[in-house]
């Protein structure tokens, strides 16, 4: 399943789960394979000792480290620190991204003059700017929030723009016929029609923002999940480091799932397939 993204390339979207009678069987197969892999891992490391446990601790040890981690107040402090920065940066990016995206998508003049630069900035690996942000804004929260904002804002702008461009003209005309104009037209017609696009931009932006937060903490941080992970790996406490990575995997997947759920809730009239057709 693909959607045509703002960059004009086909981007695959995670297929919606289709519940069929045979589907449950595959879930069991998946669980079985994962269990088998974990068992083989455990066997190779702790029983046969093919790999030194220092390099690759067995799953049981990682699980123990994970449970230990969840019981530590230090971890929850770091969690709150990282998530706080991420949420602030993301909220700023959503507000700016949706407003700029709607404006640029709606106005042909703006689209022509500004959009090429936005597109160029979108395809730039902006993570390279991270050291400069730390240089300018220091090691505190500000540099991380700015980094989250910078990385998250462009996918939101470009997807919103794409959505605003593809709003059906007949909807706009119908609105005009009924005397809806100006800001009200934007709020009642353009914004809802663009919403699913914005949300898929926000989904991408959230993942990139997470990268920004963690990178900021790696490069110069005094707290946060990335700092904990870096510290554990540096001390060669591999069980703790892998447990931290699992925490991040859970956070990232939970965020994506949450935004997908939000999209289904807020824009139930659209699904991914419809977006493909519309663009």
């Amino acid at each position, binding site marked *: *399943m693909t959607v045509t993204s703002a960059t004009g390339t086909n981007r695959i979207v995670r297929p919606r789960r289709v519940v069929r009678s045979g589907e449950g069987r595959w879930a069991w*197969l998946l669980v079985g394979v994962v269990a088998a892999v974990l068992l083989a891992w455990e066997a190779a490391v702790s029983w046969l000792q093919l790999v030194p446990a220092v*390099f690759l601790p067995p799953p049981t040890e990682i699980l123990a480290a994970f449970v230990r981690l969840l019981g530590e107040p230090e971890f929850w402090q770091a969690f709150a620190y990282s998530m706080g920065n991420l949420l602030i940066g993301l909220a700023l990016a959503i507000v700016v991204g949706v407003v700029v995206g709607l404006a640029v998508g709606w106005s042909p003049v703006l689209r022509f003059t500004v*959009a090429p630069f936005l597109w160029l900035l979108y395809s730039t690996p902006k993570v390279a700017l991270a050291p400069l942000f730390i240089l300018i804004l220091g090691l505190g929260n500000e540099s991380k929030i700015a980094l989250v904002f910078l990385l998250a804002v462009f996918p939101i702008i470009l997807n919103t723009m794409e959505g605003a*461009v*593809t709003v059906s003209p007949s909807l706009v005309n119908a609105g005009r016929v009924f005397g809806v104009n100006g800001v009200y037209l934007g709020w009642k017609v353009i914004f809802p029609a663009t919403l699913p696009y914005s949300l898929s931009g926000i989904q991408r932006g959230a993942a990139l923002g997470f990268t920004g937060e963690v*990178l900021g903490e790696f490069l110069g941080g005094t707290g946060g999940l990335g700092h904990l992970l870096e510290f554990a*790996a540096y001390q060669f406490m591999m069980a703790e480091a892998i447990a931290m990575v699992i925490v991040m995997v859970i956070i990232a997947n939970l965020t*994506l799932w949450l935004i997908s759920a939000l999209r289904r809730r807020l824009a139930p009239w659209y699904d991914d397939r419809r977006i493909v057709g519309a663009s």
Partner: protein
Amino acid sequence: MSAFLASGPNLGRGGVGAWLAGLSPRGKVLVLAGEVVVMLALWQLVVGVLGWINPVFFPPPSAIWQGFLELWSSGVLATNALVSLQAWLTGFAIAVGIGIPLGLLMGTSLPVDRVVGPIAWTIYATPTIAYQPLAKAWFGFGIGPVIFLVAISAVFPILLNVAAGMRTTNPSIIRAGTVFGAGRFQLYRSVYLPSTVPFLFAGLRQAVVLATIGMVVAELTGSAQGMGAVIIRAANTYQTDQAFAAIALVVVWSVGMTQVVTLVERWVAPWTRKARR
């Protein structure tokens, strides 16, 4: 790229918008080029001449060019760019080497798809930066973790796109193939492959961007060589002009490789062009 040249829903308006819409493609390019020149001149004026922004934080274009020349003449650029290039190409080759066969296998066999698919999506959804400290601990400092991060960033878009391409092959064409007596191999060669290739190239384009991000992240956080190391060293010594020059080169590489993928696609699979605008 096509989004900003589309007409959009804003109907019945005149003025500058109508004038722009009426321009020929060549005229549009000229207006854009003019815009770029104006932007650069404005940037130079605000930072370099008027000094409204501290040039250490945001150097003007002329200083960035100077920084580029400094990097070039000191030989720093050539050695580090070569290291980055090597890591990027190796990692990308590994990603292609794993991604395409596994994607084809996922597309062919339903059990493999149902097992590998969810695992691949879960890993893909996590920003690859999370794996960087592990890579550093396992592969040491130097080029190893960079290759690992490039490969793991690039493999999933390729893998998942190829699998999606195989899965979404039009069933009526497959049926038509079987009706005309195509064997299993022939079916793959003439039905599955042509309909998967556009997906493959879409995945490759995504992979180029993600691989570049992975490379920069890995080099920024744990490597003494490569473009990322040049950027962070320049930034830490307040030579931001050199940092910006190095960033610009990375951008050129990323955009350039995306264009290369598109060119290869046009050459290898000209039939995919009609699917896009």
